[in-house]
């Protein structure tokens, strides 16, 4: 769709008028938006040079064509700066990966939302917050990039509550859900490199719940700290309980990460420990669920065995986010989805 053939609408130059005009057509997220004029969209597109009408992905359930131009339109609406556009384009590519199962993510009754984690050089250059308060509020890049993803899902993908999004209660993470990785304070290097990427910048998309806090201000012992995270992971209410392929993203604060590293623990050690400790009795899980999407070895466990909350230690993804203090968090998965980490293309 070129600018000439794109659909435009005329509204008064007033934020409330724009919000009302969009709401009348089922658009918007309920918050005021920046008017996507041609000039603003053109300026946004300059943030990621390329053919504006290239289709980055087709997004279900509406089968909407996410061109660079339409991604830019929604970025303007959300309040993004042009420097953020490469992150959004990469995130849309990730959302469309088959293993993401975006149709299911958008359609489910679960309150799942895509968490964006920005890695590498672009995080600093585009002003993302990886430190104190990274999950929000207060930082434009984090807030508006996450919001733009939601607007893209609402408008282009058609994930409108009701016809395109059956989430029973919805959730706050569906407004905006974006952080940057605190690579400067990660004792284990960057997450993207740990999964095989060596690009200067990358983005991870993980479709999960809002963060579950784990607080430990007493311990210097990694095991004691991680026991609290394991406790936050161990719940019958999470989809990870019946779905073995479900991942956990464990966002350690720098102080918790340092405690682990100072004791000689690697990123993999942290995941292995959580795999060992985040478990529930097989009998309890079998009593709670009619259907268990478990691995064959889990099915073979006797009722008195302790079953891991996920089917493999590699499903526990560990990285560093945040600033001073001793709060870490866990982001459980919707379940029938896998995270995707891809490079961010910059020019």
């Amino acid at each position, binding site marked *: 769709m070129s600018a000439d053939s794109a659909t435009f*609408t005329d509204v008064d130059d007033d934020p409330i008028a724009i919000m009302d005009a969009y709401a009348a057509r089922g658009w918007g997220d309920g918050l005021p938006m920046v008017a996507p004029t041609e000039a603003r969209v053109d300026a946004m597109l300059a943030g990621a040079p390329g053919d504006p009408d290239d289709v980055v992905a087709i997004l279900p359930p509406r089968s*909407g064509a996410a061109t660079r131009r339409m991604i830019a*339109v929604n970025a303007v609406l959300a309040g993004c700066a042009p420097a953020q556009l490469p992150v959004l384009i990469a995130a849309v590519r990730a959302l469309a990966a088959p293993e993401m199962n975006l149709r299911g993510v958008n359609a489910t009754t679960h309150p799942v939302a895509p968490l964006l984690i920005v890695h590498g050089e672009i995080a600093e250059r585009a002003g993302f917050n990886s430190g104190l308060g990274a999950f929000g509020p207060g930082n434009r890049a984090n807030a508006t990039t996450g919001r733009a993803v939601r607007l893209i899902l609402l408008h282009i993908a058609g994930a409108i509550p009701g016809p395109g999004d059956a989430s029973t209660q919805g959730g706050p993470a569906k407004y905006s859900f974006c952080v940057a990785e605190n690579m400067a304070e990660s004792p284990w290097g960057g997450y993207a490199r740990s999964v095989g990427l060596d690009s200067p910048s990358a983005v991870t998309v993980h479709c999960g719940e809002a963060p579950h806090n784990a607080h430990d201000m007493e311990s210097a012992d990694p095991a004691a700290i991680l026991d609290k995270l394991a406790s936050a992971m161990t719940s019958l209410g999470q989809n990870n309980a019946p779905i073995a392929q479900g991942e956990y993203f464990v966002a350690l604060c720098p102080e918790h990460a340092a405690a682990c590293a100072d004791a000689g623990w690697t990123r993999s050690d942290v995941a292995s420990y959580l795999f060992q400790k985040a478990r529930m009795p097989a009998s309890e899980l079998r009593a709670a669920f009619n259907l268990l999407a478990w691995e064959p070895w889990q099915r073979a466990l006797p009722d008195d065995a302790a079953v891991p909350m996920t089917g493999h230690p590699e499903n526990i993804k560990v990285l560093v986010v945040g600033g001073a203090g001793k709060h870490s968090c866990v982001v459980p998965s919707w379940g029938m989805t896998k995270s995707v980490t891809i490079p961010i293309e910059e020019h």
Partner: protein
Amino acid sequence: MRIYTPDGEIGDAPGPLAAPRSVMSGARIGILDNTKPNAGVLLAQIAERIAERTGATVSPVETKNAALAAPDDVIARLEKEVDVVLTGSAD
């Protein structure tokens, strides 16, 4: 003020739907149970009612995960063994 609408065009259309079957007499009805609570019960009862009224037959139930597309082998069996499929129930 002129502003963009935010939704853009529809991309490549998914495959076309099959034409509806005009006569059910003698048809083989398949059930694709998405394993949501009560889906199997509801779909089986609908299939039996249709069969009673039309002389159709009900084939064994196939199952799929509610969050995923049906596997290729399930689709292949349904394609081979039934004429219509009941599915799509949610809790």
